[in-house]
């Protein structure tokens, strides 16, 4: 499964939801499908996208939040899974695109390439709903199930280690940040 195909398959579900992504391929590919003011791309601070999602989910229980995370980022903040599990925000869907590599810095393999199982780690951390999927059909169904479940879900999607030709887009970081803030507060 290609990550951009997975993003494309659920893109229409994101229209009225609060979306936070990690840096690199996830940010560039989601922007390539069409930026929206409700999308925030955390273009650094690896590991903290899920923490930002938690901060939004806890303070805005009226909004559904989707975080698009990655294996390299989750591995930098495994403790964050225990914090997510501790508060179990019902309005948070945590997607982890697992390409088993640090793609944007040359594709060096992460620990998920040698057997570390992020869905199992998330379940053991106490995340109430977890799933691991490998095909677009499985991903789309699991994503829709997570949106309607009313329970915190970590959905690990195994994807190919391929990404866009370039990672820099024409959306300035601060432009994205203030646009997203205005959206969230309006």
């Amino acid at each position, binding site marked *: 499964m290609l990550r951009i195909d997975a993003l494309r398959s659920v893109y229409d579900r994101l229209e009225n939801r609060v979306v936070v992504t990690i840096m690199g391929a996830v940010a560039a590919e989601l922007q390539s499908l069409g930026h929206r003011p409700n999308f925030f791309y955390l273009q650094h601070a690896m590991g*903290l996208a899920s923490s930002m999602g938690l901060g*939004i989910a*806890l303070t805005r229980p009226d909004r559904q939040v989707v975080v698009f995370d990655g294996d390299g980022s989750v591995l930098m903040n495994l403790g964050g899974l225990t914090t997510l599990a501790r508060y179990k925000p019902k309005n948070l869907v945590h997607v982890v695109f697992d390409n088993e590599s640090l793609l944007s810095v040359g594709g060096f393999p992460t620990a998920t390439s040698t057997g570390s199982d992020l869905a199992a780690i998330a379940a053991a951390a106490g995340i109430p709903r977890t799933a691991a999927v490998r095909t677009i059909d499985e991903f789309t169904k699991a994503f829709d199930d997570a949106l309607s479940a009313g329970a915190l879900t970590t959905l690990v999607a195994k994807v190919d280690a391929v990404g866009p030709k370039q990672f820099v887009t024409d959306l300035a970081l601060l432009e994205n940040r203030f646009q997203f803030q205005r959206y969230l507060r309006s």
Partner: protein
Amino acid sequence: MSPVSVASSRIVYDALKACGIRLVSALPETWLVHLIRMADDDPEMILVRLAKEEEGVGISAGAHLAGVKSAMLMQNHGLLASINGIVSCAQLYRIPLLMLISYRGEFGERDPWQTEGGGVTEDLLRALRIPFSYLDNVSHVAPRIAKAQTLSLSSNKPVALLLCRDLMWEDQ
């Protein structure tokens, strides 16, 4: 009975409340126990107990973008553990943070394991260009917290207040 001051902790907590703080992230440390309990007992406060202090940067960033005022409670070693998040989330994205940092390793420190962090805390804050001040006397706690928050929000940047032994510890 811990010699951590309940009375001073209450003054700090009330000052945070008076500033409209609605979310506090924290990782337990001796000097912060009463503040954390006060947040936990307060139905108006969202307390987020962390596994590592850097998570608090992301949580406060999310809360801020959503329009909710927050504060972070940490030890100075928690500041050390949060540096990347402070630089590459809060500073890169101009996110205000109100950080209350227990200043371990200062004059009077008895725990040998706390003595190294105290020596680097202020230099580190200066290197990060984070404005900071001290909370070392009950008389200035409330105005300093309010002014720190004002600067943080007007500059869209992190600010730090160092919780000092003279304020937090009763057994001198």
